[in-house]
């Protein structure tokens, strides 16, 4: 088989490797869902998953689901419940092991903005309309507060990897070490940012994100050039192993419409 892969596929597989067999996991739509179902297909058959729509036990049918409750994710479910159940009883409660969320902007402490971009940041005294309206938090804020850990997926571009996000839609480590404790969050915060160039992980002393790994097609230099803060290389940083043939086969069984091969 063709062993070549796209950056999107490398990112999905790197994210999937973060999920462990037997865990309880919540996925969103799109990339994160493909990464999650890849893990289930490849190395974590006992991963228990649900969507924030309250769809349990389902696998996508007929292509990438349009949304978190659409017909493509509702054709082999074992339970349908709702938002208070999925995001409340299972996530905000602290029961869920891991969640995957996306980010339009992410900063050095792993705070995520999916709400809006303002021309010069948001002024303190007023709250004008954003220059660019994004989608809002959805369930990501609930996942960031409640899941034992969460993984952020983002395209690695300088405008997205900023010193401080315009708006915190979903809390990472806020102002750094000890900040989450001020709010008593039951979740422990973001464990990794998986990007199109590599993997960033928080420094245990400062909670600032550092380069933990790069792909065979990228480098620590390329990550630095595309990051808006002075990013450090962690002591044990290394190249991320390429997707294996069997990993690619598993991912492509899940990504049947080739959504990750288009770019």
């Amino acid at each position, binding site marked *: 088989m063709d062993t070549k892969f796209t950056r999107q596929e490398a990112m999905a597989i790197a994210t999937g490797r973060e999920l462990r067999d037997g865990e309880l996991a919540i996925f969103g739509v799109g990339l994160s869902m493909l990464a999650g179902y890849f893990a289930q297909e490849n190395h974590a058959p006992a991963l228990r998953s649900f969507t924030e729509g309250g769809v349990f036990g389902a696998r996508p049918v007929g292509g990438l689901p349009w949304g*978190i409750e*659409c017909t493509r994710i509702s054709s082999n479910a074992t339970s349908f419940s*709702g938002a208070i159940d999925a995001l409340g009883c299972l996530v905000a409660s602290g029961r869920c092991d891991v969640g995957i969320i996306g980010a339009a902007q992410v900063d050095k402490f792993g705070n995520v903005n999916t709400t809006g971009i303002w021309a010069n940041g948001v002024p303190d005294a007023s*709250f004008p309309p954003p220059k660019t309206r994004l989608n809002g938090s959805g369930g990501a804020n609930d996942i960031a507060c409640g899941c034992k850990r969460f993984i952020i997926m983002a395209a690695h571009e300088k405008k997205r990897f900023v010193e401080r996000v315009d708006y915190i839609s979903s809390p990472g480590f806020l102002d750094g070490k000890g900040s989450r404790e001020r709010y008593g969050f039951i979740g422990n915060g973001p464990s990794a940012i998986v990007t199109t160039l590599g993997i960033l992980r928080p420094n245990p002393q400062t909670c600032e994100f550092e380069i933990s790994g790069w792909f065979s097609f990228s480098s620590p230099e390329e990550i630095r050039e595309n990051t808006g803060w002075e990013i450090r290389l962690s002591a044990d940083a290394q190249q991320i192993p390429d997707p294996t043939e069997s990993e690619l086969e598993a991912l492509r069984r899940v990504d049947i419409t080739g959504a990750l091969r288009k770019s």
Partner: protein
Amino acid sequence: MSIRSAITQNKLITLSEAVREHTHDGQQIATNGLPVGAEPVAFARELLRQKRKNLHIVSTCASSGLNLLCGAGAVSKMEGGFSGLEVFGFANGIRRAVESGQAAWEDYSNLAMPLRYLAGALNLPFFPANVCIGSDIRNRSAFGGNTNGNEKIPLLADPFTGKKVGALSPLKPDLAVIYVPFADAAGNAIILGSEWTSVELSRAAKKLIIIADNIVDKACIRQYPNLVRIPAELVTAVVWHPFAAWPNSSPGLYDSDEAHVRELNAALKTEAGTQEYLEKFVVPAETPQSLRKLIGEEKIAVLTATPSAFLADPYRKWILPEEETEKLLNARKTSIEIK
């Protein structure tokens, strides 16, 4: 069943009657549904045909209906958890309205919204939350603060442990419009797929309109009472409207009309495109029959060949044929005229 109870248990009205009798400019209206999911898009089209303005829309997740209303300039306030169209991208109508300042979007999370409905439903002063605190959702308000000059989500001390919790304000929408695949003429409603936030919303709203793709015989309701999550006792009126969620999908009934979701969203990018869309797909979609014609039988055959169709099988034998549903609708009209 006596004739009297047969009449009082029939709440069927037409879509245009529902909007004429139960909505007004400036009203707070809540709708159900997940992004590009099963939601009452048909109701949004009728609000536009009757030229409702300055609407305050409450929705856990916005979708095609709110995108359309926003693009057409009918909305001034919105509150919800998510304003996007999932894999279809950003909602252009909502973006244009929010970025221009024409409409304000108040952000919450997808869990905060149903907790606010639940607080409204239980008549609680607020709901304590361990989400939305510590983020800008807590203190940034597009509505300029909350009621009585309070913060949007004030921080309180848990009286038992002293830990911080956020106080979510309760919601009791003036009107809720909830789409379901099956209901009887009294409004006993069956949901297929995720219930999402419909159950809490149905209890929180001051008035509730059910829009159902299919009207079923009462025997269906009696067969599956566990699955009737919205009982008729809560329902003000029932509208029968096949393909009411189109172009979104409805689990068990039809898939998403992908091409049309994209066409609609592309049109909403500009005012001119929106006007053209309204003339082509909103103005002529006055009745269930005319909407069906607009979608076209060929496309309907494709959309209804959904892999989820088996979910609807247990209920199919109780679906009333169109003539019988129309007869019930007319019987109600006649009974009102007699009174």
